[in-house]
């Protein structure tokens, strides 16, 4: 249908698309079927109240019927049609498509935008990988170290009667180069992590929400001051929430933050947290709230020299990390499975039972880990309960008792002889 199509034709087209009889639409509009027939064949002009009435019956608006589909959508569809030249599209019927299937048209445009965005990301990454000076330097270091190790170890293997001095020198060289390789590999892994964050944006809504909180140190002043009313402004201003699903998820999380802030206002809660030694059970009892609320509220306290480092991790029953606020001295994995020795996972085995455990991170820092798992939502005899666990990490001094040694995730954990190890570490290991 060309864009110059007349209002009557659009009415007819939409009516047919909705499977509505001419007589029924006429009756709804309070006119005769024969008069509607004349309108639909563009032999009578239509406007004003009657057009509004017919538009309402056709579940659209009068402007769409009188002026056709949204020009911006049509232009965007034309751009989508030009992507991937192999597929023939009925470009001359774009307006008809938009008019009949506005939701599908919008979806197609949205996906076209997304494809374009992903292609840009891919080009950017490709460019980065080819020209990134840091990556190039690290790759040179890795290959240099590998070349030295390969040549030296071959010499040792192929020369069994090598002079003892040379053997000692070559052993020392292999040791030096293997350390260099380990350090460079770790630096490359960290660089890739940064690249992914910088260039690809956030692949999931969960990541976008996590990035939003990380950037603000997990403390949102606007909500502390204005409560729920600040959320719309925060969502509009945040660069992280490009997709509707990320925005939706952020709204849920920020609303929960606002509820927590209302239940436990910052100043009195900060005072009691300090007075009660940052003990979440004591705080829950003092303020009459559940443990999860106290965990979340403690994790959103602003950093302060007089306050211990506080971190928080939550997961579902499958162990998937839902929220992570890493405290200084304890890396929490951004991707992949976490260390199975975390008390968080022990809590999942006994829902409702609070657990307190002293732990030491692979970076050497000590934390008191408070963990609890609880059912989420309404309980039912006919449904499997949804269980979520949370682990609050409060920095501790060097303890008198033996802590449980935990890591971040196996790939970057240097602990040797760990019974829970799933895969080798890329770091040099320690005992």
């Amino acid at each position, binding site marked *: 249908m060309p864009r110059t199509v007349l209002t009557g034709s659009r009415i007819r087209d939409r009516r047919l698309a909705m499977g509505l009889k001419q007589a029924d639409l006429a009756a709804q509009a309070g006119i005769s079927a024969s008069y509607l027939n004349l309108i639909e064949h563009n032999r009578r002009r239509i406007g004003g109240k009657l057009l509004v009435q017919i538009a309402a019956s056709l579940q659209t608006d009068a402007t769409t019927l009188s002026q056709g589909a949204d020009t911006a959508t049509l232009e965007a569809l034309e751009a989508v049609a030009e992507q991937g030249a192999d597929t023939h599209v009925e470009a001359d019927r774009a307006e008809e498509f938009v008019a009949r299937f506005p939701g599908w048209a919008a979806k197609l445009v949205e996906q076209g935008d997304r494809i374009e965005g992903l292609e840009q990301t891919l080009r950017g990454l490709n460019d980065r990988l080819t020209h990134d000076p840091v990556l190039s330097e690290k790759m*040179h270091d890795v*290959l*240099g170290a590998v*070349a030295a190790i390969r040549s*030296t170890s071959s010499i040792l293997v192929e*020369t069994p009667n090598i002079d003892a001095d040379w053997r000692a020198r*070559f052993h020392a060289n292999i040791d030096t180069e293997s350390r260099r390789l380990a350090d460079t590999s770790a630096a490359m892994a960290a660089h890739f992590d940064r690249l992914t964050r910088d260039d690809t944006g956030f692949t999931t809504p969960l990541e976008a929400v996590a990035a939003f909180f990380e950037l603000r140190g997990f403390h949102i002043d606007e909500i502390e001051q204005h409560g729920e009313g600040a959320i719309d402004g925060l969502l509009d201003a945040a660069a992280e929430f490009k997709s509707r699903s990320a925005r939706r998820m952020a709204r849920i999380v920020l609303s929960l933050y606002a509820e927590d802030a209302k239940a436990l206002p910052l100043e009195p809660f900060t005072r009691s947290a300090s007075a009660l030694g940052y003990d979440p059970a004591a705080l829950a009892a003092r303020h009459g709230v559940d443990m999860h609320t106290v965990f979340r509220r403690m994790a959103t306290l602003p950093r302060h020299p007089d306050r211990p480092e506080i971190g928080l991790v939550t997961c579902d029953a499958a162990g998937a990390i839902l929220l992570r606020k890493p405290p200084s001295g304890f890396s929490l994995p951004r991707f992949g499975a976490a260390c199975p020795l975390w008390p968080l996972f022990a809590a999942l085995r006994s829902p409702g039972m609070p657990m307190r455990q002293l732990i030491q991170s692979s970076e050497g820092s000590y934390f008191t880990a408070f963990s609890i798992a609880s059912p989420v939502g309404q309980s039912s005899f006919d449904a499997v309960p949804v269980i979520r666990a949370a682990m609050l990490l409060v920095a501790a001094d060097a303890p008198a008792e033996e802590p449980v040694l935990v890591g971040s995730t196996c790939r970057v954990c240097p602990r040797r002889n760990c019974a829970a190890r799933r895969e080798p570490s890329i770091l040099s290991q320690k005992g």
Partner: protein
Amino acid sequence: MGNSVLLIEDEPNIIEAISFLLERDGWTVRLHTEGVGAVEAVAAANPDVVVLDVMLPGRSGFDILRELRQGAAPADLPVLMLTARGQTKDRELAESYGVSGFMTKPFSNAEMLQTVRDLAEGRPPSGS
């Protein structure tokens, strides 16, 4: 066939490994560890083969090769380039400047030795 090699390389542990291999194979190895002054070092040493790293402090191996081929050294002086950058464009650049052999790190000791021997005897390198 002569028996001297000038190794232009800055990685100490690679220098040690290559020197050991070449000396065990009967070569006299001289060393220059940076890009600056490498062309002069070639003129002074007058080697039978040059083993030249690409990424050197001060000056790239490509620049050094180009200057050598522009008359700073005998036109038939064999130059074997060693590089961690094995991309096609690097190899093409080296070939356009007149490299005799091109090996990417990590390399096998046997291939490296065979290539040096081939170049010294004026044969096309079989190892690179």
